[in-house]
């Protein structure tokens, strides 16, 4: 990978300007955090609460949403690779929800126009659970799910 140890301060991005504002003491970090982080959705302790927090209501099942490079069995729950790809036109956002985690919502990705509606990341899973890929496309919500089994480690537990 390219060497990226050099941190930069100046760039045109909104987030960076925000960072500068925090660094300069113009706004408190708490404000920066609150900005753009959906607390009520992340606080949700089950699927309904998380969906409600996201304003997703009752999403429609969709075959246009696929899990890619997502194993059915995770050798370790601390790192579970999840890839979600949406073939739905005008996909605006992709969220990953894990039913049996203490907090259901794991991540939300906002897909800019021109960005492929496919992301891959890694999540933690407390136990075997259904994993939901929620997609917002053209203002409407769709969902697909997959069960991922989490197995125990070797000697010594």
């Amino acid at each position, binding site marked *: 990978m390219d060497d990226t140890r050099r941190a930069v301060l100046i760039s045109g991005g909104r987030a960076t300007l925000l960072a500068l504002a925090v660094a300069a003491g113009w706004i408190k970090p708490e404000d920066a955090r609150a900005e753009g982080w959906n607390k009520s959705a992340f606080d949700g302790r089950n699927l309904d609460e998380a969906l409600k927090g996201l304003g997703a209501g009752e999403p429609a099942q969709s075959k246009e949403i696929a899990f890619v490079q997502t194993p059915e*069995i995770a050798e370790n729950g601390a790192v579970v690779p999840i890839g979600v790809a949406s073939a739905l036109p005008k996909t605006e956002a992709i969220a990953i929800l894990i039913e049996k985690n203490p907090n259901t919502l794991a991540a939300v990705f906002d897909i800019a126009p021109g960005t492929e509606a496919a992301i891959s990341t890694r999540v933690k899973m407390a136990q075997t659970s259904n994993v939901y890929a929620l997609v917002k496309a053209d203002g409407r919500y769709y969902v697909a799910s997959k069960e991922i*089994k989490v197995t*125990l480690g070797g*000697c*010594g537990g």
Partner: protein
Amino acid sequence: MPPRSSAERATTTGRRLRGLALALLVTGCATTPGDQELAEQATAALKSSFKPAGQAGLDRLEQDETQRTCSAAGGKPLAKETAAALEQANLATIRYPVDGKVLGDWKNGEKLAQEGRGKQFSDDPGGPVGGNCYACHQLSKAELAFGTIGPSLYLYGKSHGAGAEVQRYTFGKIYNSEAFVACSNMPRFGYKGILSEQQIRDLTALLLDPASPVNQ
């Protein structure tokens, strides 16, 4: 037969194990001078390379006769007579419950089979000590994360039946595996004080009880 005191047991066991050492000498475990020197170098390396931690003291590096014999074999099978002597000596260490009951609670047995903690220097000395059976054996249909170092024990009771002889063998095997197969990879759970008599009963029940997941 009245239960014997632990001191008596220890004396008997010590005698048997000394007998084993003698048997090994007779059956030809003699080492070449090179081997002897190497063994000394290895022992010296061990002594200087470990430190006591948590519940694991340096006494854990002191080998008993069985450990010494199996280590010296270096992965090769023992001579027939040596193996027989070793099995005999270990057989003599098995203490069956005085009331003759070897079947306990299979539900607790299942927990013990899943539990991997116990006796590691990182473990709480007052915490749980398990058998960790699933690390090496398949036992039930439901648990996919099982090891294969030992044979599958799924349906063990269904195929072996639960007659008195099988019960006794199963309890004894868990108590001291070396009594039946010299240099087995399986720990001697009873003899080495890893599991209690009741816990070995519970594991015996896990293997033999018709209601246990092992036999479903």
